C-alpha cells in the first residue's frame, strides 16, 4: 500500500522467476542493454565531421522549410504532380512542421490525389476493384464470424464506420453526379 513506505510484495521470488522464464535477469545490468546510455558518441565520426556525397537532384525536390538544405540522400518515389502536388508543395514551402496548416494541407493533398486517381481510373475504363483492393475477400476462410463474436472485442463498436470511410468518398461525387444529371434532364424537358 502506498500509504506506508514498503513496496508491496511480489508473487514470485527471483529464483522462481529465473526457473520459470528463459533468460530472466540476463539484462539486469544496464551496461548489457544496447540503449544504455541514450547517446553513445563516436569520437572518430565526430572528428571527421564529414557530409555524405550528394545524390543528384534530377528534378526539384520538395523539402521542409526547417531544413537548411536538401538532405544528401532522399527518396525519389512518387514525385509531386498535379493539383495534389501543388497543395503539398505549398505545405512544404510555406509552413514549418510546427504549424497545423502544414499537416492539414498534406492530408488535403492526400485526399485530392486519392480522389483524382479513382476518377482517372474510372475515365480510363479501368475502375478500381474495391473488392480486391480492400482485401475483403480475405474474409473467406479467415473465420470472420468466430473472429468477431468469439472475442471480447472493443473495436466492434466502430467497425460499421469502416465501410463508410471506404465508400464515402465515392458516394459524395456519385450523389453530385446524380443531382447534376437530374438538373440537366429537367432543363431539357422544359
Amino acid at each position, binding site marked *: 500500500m502506498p500509504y506506508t513506505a514498503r513496496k508491496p510484495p511480489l508473487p514470485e521470488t527471483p529464483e522462481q522467476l529465473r526457473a520459470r522464464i528463459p533468460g530472466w535477469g540476463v539484462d539486469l545490468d544496464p551496461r548489457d542493454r544496447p540503449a544504455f546510455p541514450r547517446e553513445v558518441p563516436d569520437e572518430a565520426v565526430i572528428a571527421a565531421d564529414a557530409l555524405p556525397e550528394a545524390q543528384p537532384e534530377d528534378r526539384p525536390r520538395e523539402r521542409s522549410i526547417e531544413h537548411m538544405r536538401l538532405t544528401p540522400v532522399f527518396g525519389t518515389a512518387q514525385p509531386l504532380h498535379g493539383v495534389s502536388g501543388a497543395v503539398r508543395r505549398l505545405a512544404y514551402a510555406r509552413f514549418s512542421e510546427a504549424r497545423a496548416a502544414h499537416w492539414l494541407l498534406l492530408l488535403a493533398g492526400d485526399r485530392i490525389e486519392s480522389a483524382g486517381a479513382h476518377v482517372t481510373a474510372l475515365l480510363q475504363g479501368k475502375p478500381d476493384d474495391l473488392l480486391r483492393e480492400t482485401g475483403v475477400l480475405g474474409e473467406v476462410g479467415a*473465420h470472420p464470424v468466430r473472429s468477431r463474436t468469439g472475442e*471480447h472485442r472493443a473495436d466492434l463498436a466502430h467497425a460499421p464506420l469502416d465501410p463508410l470511410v471506404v465508400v464515402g468518398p465515392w458516394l459524395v461525387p456519385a450523389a453530385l453526379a446524380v443531382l447534376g444529371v437530374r438538373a440537366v434532364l429537367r432543363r431539357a424537358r422544359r
Partner: protein
Amino acid sequence: MRAMTYRGPYKIRVEEKDRPRIEHPRDAIVRVTLATICGSDLHLYHGLMPDTRIGHTFGHEFVGIVDEVGPAVENLQVGDRVLVPFNVYCGTCFFCARGLYSNCHNVNPNATAVGGIYGYSHTTGGYDGGQAEYVRVPFADVGPTLIPEWMSDRDAVPLTDAVSTGYFGAQLADVVEGDVVVVLGAGPVGLTAARSSWLMGAGRVIVVDHLDYRLEKARTWAYAETVNFSQVKDVVLTLKRMTDGLGADAVIDAVGAEADGNLLQHVTAAKLKLQGGSPIALNWAIDAVRKGGTVSVMGAYGPMFSAVKFGDAMNKGLTLRMNQTPVKRQLPRLFEHVRNGFITPSDLLTHTFPLDDIAEAYHVFATKLDGCVKPAIVPGGGQ
C-alpha cells in the same frame, strides 16, 4: 517487378513497377525474400499519415539478398543475405554520430522531426518499401546487417522492427529488479516488450489488450498476467487494484495511434483524422503508472496534436521516454537472445501470404481475423 501500392485509405493493390536503381554511390538494391506487415503500416493503410502518396509501396520490415551495390559500398557483396533495419540513416550526421540512428538528419528532406523510414510515406523521406520484389537501400554500408547462418529468415525479419522495438521499449522503461511492468497492447511489439521486461529483471509483467487470442499469446509466449480491458469497467482502476493501489513502476505503450477503449478518442483520431493519433493507451499509461514512474512510448503517433492528459504526467513526476528504435544498436545483443532462445521472433508470424494477396493480408491483419498476430509476405508467389 511486382510491388504493393497504395490506392487511398483502406485500399491497396499489387502493380508492376520499375525495378529500383542505384541513385547514390552508397546505395544497394536488395531482392526481398521475406517481408512482414507492421502494426504501424496500418496507420498508413488507414490514411492517418500525412503525405502518403498514391502508388507508394509500404514495407519497413524485410530481409533479402543483395542484388546490386553502388560503387562506394565496400562491406556488402552481391549475394549477401541481409536484414535491413527499418531506419534509413547515414551514420555520420550529428545524431547518427551519437547512436541516434532513428533520428538521422541526412535522409529525410520532408521533415526534421522524424528520420528516414522505408515505405512509410513522404513524411519519412519518400522511400518505397520492402513489400515488393526489390527495394533501394540507401547507405547500404551502414544499415544492412548480415544474417547469421544459424538464423532463419523468419527469425530475422521481426528483428528489423517489431522485436527490436519491443526490446527497446523495455529498455526505455528503465526496468530494475523487481519492477512491476504494465504493457499496453499485445501485438508483436507489446509481446516482445513484455518478454524483454523479464530479461531486465521485472518482478511482475501485466499485459493489457482487448483481443483474447492475443492475451493468450501474452500468457504463453511472454509469461505475463493479462487484463482484457473490454471486460473491466475501468482499466486504470483495475491495474491500481492489482498493484495494491500503488500503480506500476513502468508502463509501456505498445499501441499508438489507433488505440481502442474510448469511442470518442478513437473515432476523432482514427476515423475523422482530427488528432495525430488516439491517445487512449498513452493516457492509460500516464494514469496507471505510479508517481515517479516511467512511461515508455513505442506506439507510433502522427505528427498532429493529440489530446494527452499531460497535467497528470506533470503532477505525478513521471519520466516519459520514447523514440523510434535505432535498430542496429539492438542487433548484437538481440542475436544473442535469439540464439539462446530467450526471444523467439518467428513465433510471432502467424500467417503467410504471397505478395499478390497482400490486400487480403492487410485486411486480415487490420480486422484481427483468424487469430492473426503478424502476417508475413513472400514475394515471388510463395505461400
